[in-house]
């Protein structure tokens, strides 16, 4: 339950799963409880069977925490509005991400541009909140954050454009449809573009878990006296929601959206209208359910056994739904299976992002912006030109698209190697910080 949070739940059950004080975020400071006068949620006082509700109890306590302002001269309106802005921006972008073939809130003509534009408004919440909190180093930290954000935004936009060359449209639904028509995820046509977008999206949502002394994140975290309150929860939630948005965009553009792998392979079971590869999700989830069941029998403790049986029930019901919809009308089946594949891909992307975040400490801001401007942006431009040349090659000479795009990727990687030789990025130094 404390593993990577399923990405779609960010929008539906935000505060229960989105702000885990246990696994990925900072830990509860021990002296916090004496300062606010609300008795702590102590594990020993809860009945053992209720202990599974511990994170929810922590979350409720987070919500009812009395409000504390960071410093004396803070502009209370701005400091309160800023986390809501961040959250709104992150959730707005999910309006146009297609979760299934007909499972999209609205299909804007300029969907991708809309998402990029809305994400670029995220700078305001960072700058506003830290500036309005009227503390000594926060303005500098906020400006450095803003600069960092801007430098990776250009790289990610250019990387997305290089995948857009393969479709003619900015509408998210059309992009997925083009991946279906061409029979290949765009990941395999522009792998370098995907890599650039991945790096840029990790850098854009840049609160790392390991905070070096003296860095921006430490300054910002240290300034709050009792940092765990509702505004912090909103900020945290917006943080994870932004990763989720980046995952949704990357899935739609590069990983094929709601398509299953090998989407154009349509052999069916003999005699039935069920496609061969469509039974794979059901079989996979069923295998997970059976594994849970068998692992439940091996558990010693009663509570763990109960948890595994509960997990087995959940996975089993998902498997049943997936298998049952194989025989349902086409719309229902494509919707449910599309949603399943979308959730799998987004979860994988979010998992990879969080994995990278937890592993590496935070870069100092100048090597980081160096990477953004001097390596990623030129690499993305070269990638764009090379992909365009590859597409033209395919159209005029008839070579297969895969060959030409692989050549384009090789050219881009050569350019990247040359760039990193001429502009070296220093790794972390001993005094990483806001110098």
């Amino acid at each position, binding site marked *: 339950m404390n593993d990577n949070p399923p990405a779609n739940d960010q929008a539906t059950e935000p505060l229960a799963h989105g702000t885990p004080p246990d696994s990925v975020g900072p830990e509860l400071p021990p002296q916090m409880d004496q300062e606010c006068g609300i008795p702590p949620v102590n594990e020993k006082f809860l009945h053992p069977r209720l202990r599974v509700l511990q994170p929810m109890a922590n979350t409720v306590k987070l919500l009812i925490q009395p409000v504390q302002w960071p410093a004396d001269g803070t502009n209370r309106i701005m400091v309160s509005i800023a986390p809501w802005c961040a959250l709104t921006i992150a959730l707005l972008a999910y309006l146009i991400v297609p979760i299934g073939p007909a499972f999209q809130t609205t299909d804007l003509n*300029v969907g991708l*541009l809309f998402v990029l534009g809305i994400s670029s*408004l995220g700078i305001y919440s960072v*700058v506003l909140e830290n500036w309005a909190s009227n503390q000594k180093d926060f303005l500098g930290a906020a*400006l450095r954050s803003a600069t960092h954000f801007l430098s990776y935004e250009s790289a990610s936009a250019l990387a997305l454009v290089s995948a857009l060359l393969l479709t003619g449209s900015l509408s998210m639904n059309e992009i997925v449809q083009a991946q279906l028509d061409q029979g290949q995820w765009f990941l395999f046509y522009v792998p370098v573009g995907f890599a650039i977008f991945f790096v840029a999206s990790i850098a854009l949502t840049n609160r790392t878990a390991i905070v070096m002394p003296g860095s921006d994140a430490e300054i910002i975290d240290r300034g709050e006296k009792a940092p765990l309150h509702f505004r912090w929860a909103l900020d945290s939630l917006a943080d994870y929601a932004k990763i989720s948005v980046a995952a949704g965009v990357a899935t739609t553009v590069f990983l094929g959206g709601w398509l299953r792998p090998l989407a154009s392979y349509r052999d069916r079971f003999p005699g039935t209208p069920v496609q061969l590869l469509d039974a794979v999700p059901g079989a996979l989830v069923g295998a997970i359910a059976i594994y849970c069941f068998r692992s439940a029998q091996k558990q010693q403790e009663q509570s763990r056994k109960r948890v595994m049986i509960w997990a087995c029930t959940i996975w089993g019901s998902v498997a049943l739904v997936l298998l049952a919809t194989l025989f349902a009308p086409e719309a229902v089946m494509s919707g449910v299976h599309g949603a399943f594949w979308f959730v799998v891909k987004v979860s994988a992307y979010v998992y990879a992002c969080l994995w990278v975040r937890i592993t590496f400490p935070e870069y100092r801001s100048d090597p980081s912006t160096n990477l953004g401007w001097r390596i990623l942006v030129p690499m993305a431009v070269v990638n764009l030109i090379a992909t365009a040349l590859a597409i033209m090659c395919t159209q005029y000479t008839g070579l297969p698209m895969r060959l030409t795009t692989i050549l384009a990727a090789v050219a881009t990687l050569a350019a990247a190697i040359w760039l990193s030789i001429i502009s070296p990025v220093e790794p972390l130094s001993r005094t990483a910080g806001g110098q």
Partner: protein
Amino acid sequence: MSVLHTILFYFFSALAVASALVMITRRNVAHAGIFLVTTLLATGGIFLLLQAEFAFALQIFLFAGGAVVLFVLASSLARLEVTRRLPGSQRGRLAAAALGLVLAAQIGFAIVVGHTSLRLPAMQSARAPKNTEAVGDALLRQFIVPFEIASVLLLVSMIGAVVLARRRA
């Protein structure tokens, strides 16, 4: 359906006008910047009502997310003046108000005289040629020369900004 359009139009335009009025009366430059963002977002809503989605996306991406970010970040370097009232003399303010009224009267007169009672055409169906395609088509066929000149302009302004804002060592 058109009732919804009318309501949305009045909502967005009220938001835009109110934000603009608040924007020019703020003493704090950063607050003025934030209200400019709300004005631009409301104007983006107006563009969506006119089914100009590309203009809407550009408005948010470039105007609100680019130019105003620049202003807000630049205002962080400026010492924010805290004055009791808006600076400027009484006479200057009267002159500004008079000039504004004259301008409004002129343009209003032009609107009233040119009244054609042309209704806007009905909303296009979703299968009509898409807005982005039409704009892109026009940009890259008819208006290709201004397009290239605009890119040269952007390059020149970038170089100029870097040169102008450099510290003389």
